[in-house]
């Protein structure tokens, strides 16, 4: 009898080693492709930095923003990045709290996307400031009555919770890495040692860990809703056509879940192919994420119908020029591309099982993400170009906004920065939670602790 138990235990130990090897192996290897990728992202980021230095020297006049369009692609990018970051709460909290098993191997992917995106959302806000050296004034003189101050508080809070939610489930994995991954530079093993907190995997430690993760999972949902609702209020709390809407909060959140789910699908595909994680990111995962993407897109479509149908039916004076600009005017090309290619066609395609396979889904998800970026642009810019007060003696160019080269470079650089954080992170830490996968396979703590 005891022999068979030993046998089972041995098998499980073997299986654990297999899992660890499989999940940790790709981290060390960095092929030429990876190096080119990092170099490419670094060049984009450095170019953006150079352009930002130019912007500091010459002022915001290097951008195309002028008196009328005072928010441009920077703020669109901020809204986009905040939207992407919301996926952290969708997958690590909402799905996990619903005890959806397949979400386990996606939690860390979504959480690192969330952290990287929200870091650059904060950076891009500073980039948009004409006088960044006065940043501290927001904290010294900011009024609690202002939605901008709410946004600062809530974005920072969300960053802290996301970081904790990334870190806490990492602790048992760090202990495993300390044990199994010894062929690393000294700084890296030192990093594992410090961050793993000397994890021993006692029952009490697991209890505290799981309780803390549960607290964060519950806490992050309202904070995630708050971060994007407040971001939408930056627009909705002003009296302008296109922004003066009561459904802006849920409209933004629905859109965020959609783009976030799409971003995770893209990341899933890359890890599946590059890291050979076919057995952790299975066709089933893609199938389920496809269904989730359809669900979030349908909700977003519903809000879109509300957001455009009601003003379109009424055609109030100020709203009508805004709506006409989107439907048939200056922005109609981009608007219909975003709505049809970025939302309606993905919904239709993903209803078929054939398209919920990894490769077609990845392509659809990339289109959804790009569409989502321009959707944010369409929310921010056209409204600004229709000022409520009649304006006089403005140069013709002030009535149009086309982002300048500097703005595009900085925007691309910020997105490169997000990808850079993720790329470096996955080289140091396992992107699939090892201990959670082990638990699901019935490998208990005793074996993990050995």
């Amino acid at each position, binding site marked *: 009898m005891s022999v068979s138990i030993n046998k089972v235990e041995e098998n499980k130990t073997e299986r654990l080693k297999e899992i660890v090897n499989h999940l940790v192996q790709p981290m060390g290897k960095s092929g030429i492709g990876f190096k080119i990728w990092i170099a490419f992202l670094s060049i984009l980021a450095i170019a953006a930095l150079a352009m930002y230095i130019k912007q500091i020297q010459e002022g915001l006049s290097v951008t195309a923003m002028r008196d009328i369009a005072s928010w441009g692609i920077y703020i669109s990018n901020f809204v986009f990045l905040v939207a992407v970051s919301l996926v952290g709460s969708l997958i690590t909290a909402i799905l996990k709290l619903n005890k959806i098993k397949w979400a386990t191997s996606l939690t860390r992917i979504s959480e690192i996307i969330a952290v990287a995106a929200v870091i650059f959302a904060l950076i891009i806000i500073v980039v948009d400031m004409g006088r960044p050296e006065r940043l501290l004034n927001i904290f010294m003189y900011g009024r609690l*009555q202002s939605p901008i101050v709410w946004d600062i508080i809530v974005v920072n809070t969300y960053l*802290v919770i996301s970081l904790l939610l990334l870190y806490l489930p990492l602790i048992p994995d760090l202990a495993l890495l300390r044990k199994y991954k010894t062929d690393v530079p000294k700084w890296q093993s030192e990093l594992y040692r410090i961050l793993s907190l000397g*994890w021993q995997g006692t029952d009490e430690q697991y209890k505290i860990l799981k309780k803390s993760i549960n607290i964060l999972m519950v*806490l992050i949902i309202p904070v995630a809703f708050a971060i994007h609702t407040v971001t939408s209020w930056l627009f909705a709390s002003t009296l302008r056509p296109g922004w003066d809407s009561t459904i802006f909060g849920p409209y933004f959140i629905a859109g965020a879940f959609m783009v976030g789910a799409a971003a995770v699908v893209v990341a899933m595909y890359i890890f599946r192919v590059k890291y050979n994680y076919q057995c952790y990111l299975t066709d089933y995962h893609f199938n389920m994420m496809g269904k989730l993407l359809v669900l979030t897109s349908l909700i977003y479509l519903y809000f879109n119908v509300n957001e455009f149908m009601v003003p379109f039916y009424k055609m109030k004076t100020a709203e009508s020029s805004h709506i006409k600009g989107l439907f048939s005017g200056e922005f109609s090309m981009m608007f219909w591309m975003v709505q049809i290619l970025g939302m309606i066609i993905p919904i239709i395609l993903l209803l078929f099982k054939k398209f919920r396979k990894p490769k077609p889904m990845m392509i659809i998800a990339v289109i959804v993400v790009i569409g989502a970026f321009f959707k944010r642009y369409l929310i921010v810019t056209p409204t600004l170009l229709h000022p409520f007060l009649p304006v006089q003696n403005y140069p013709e160019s002030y009535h149009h906004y086309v982002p300048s080269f500097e703005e595009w470079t900085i925007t691309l650089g910020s997105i490169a920065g997000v990808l850079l954080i993720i790329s470096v992170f996955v080289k140091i830490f396992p992107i699939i939670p090892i201990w959670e996968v082990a638990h699901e396979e019935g490998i208990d703590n005793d074996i993990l602790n050995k």
Partner: protein
Amino acid sequence: MKLILFLIFIIVIVLKSQAQWTIPADASQKINNVEITPKSLTVGKSIFNKMCQSCHGKKADGMGLMKSASLIADSLQLQKDGVIFYKIATGKDQMPPFQSILKEEEIWAVINYLRILVNPDSVPPAKNVKLILSGTGKGNQRKVTAMVMEKGDSAYIMQPDVDIHFYIKREFGLMRFGNDYNYTGSSGKVSAMFPTGIIGDKEGVVTIYAKIEDSFMFTETTDSIVQKWGKPIVVNNEAFDERSLWASRDKAPVWLLLVANGIILFVWLFIILVIVNIFRIKKLSKLFIK
């Protein structure tokens, strides 16, 4: 064959769109009968500033708000006065016709002004004059009077036909009042009614200016008077002293302070709890090793 026809069609269209501005022969022979005098230049400049500058630019170089021709380039300056007159009077495409808006001598004055722009040395030197502003009257019948004179050998000589601009100083600039043109009479004086309902400072004091501007005859000259002619301004700070959404940060509404800080405290309490738990985990590891 079809291709050739198509090309001819395209060429015709291109040529047509670039067609020259055809001027009737008799129109181009029209003679400018307004002499280039300081007065006509002043009139021309003032009309240019009002009607032409917005499109053609302050320097008449075509760099205004709209795409427009340069009026100082040879392409215009080499044209006869009569041709320019015809163009201003009848207009074409973006250029509006001015024949119903401006008098004939006004158009000539504008042309004289355009000629001077490329040849500024030919303008006679501006005279230095003295401008004196005074105010009289009561109630709704208050008026200001400007008097322009030049220092002669023995006495001051009154200057007729000087256009005076009247202004009231406001918080961020000057507000014009009086007629579009206020030419001084033979006595060198011109008056303007002070508008009613003007708000002054706390005592109702307003500052009034008279200016000679945009003139070729005289250098820029200003005089001002201070009169207690306005209504006293009533500053109501009550709304700012109450707690409200638009008040300063130390006057935020109580409900907002409670709700916002309550949410912040609530969330951060749990964050701190989790951070404490991290240290508890660390402590447990040490205990275990012991």
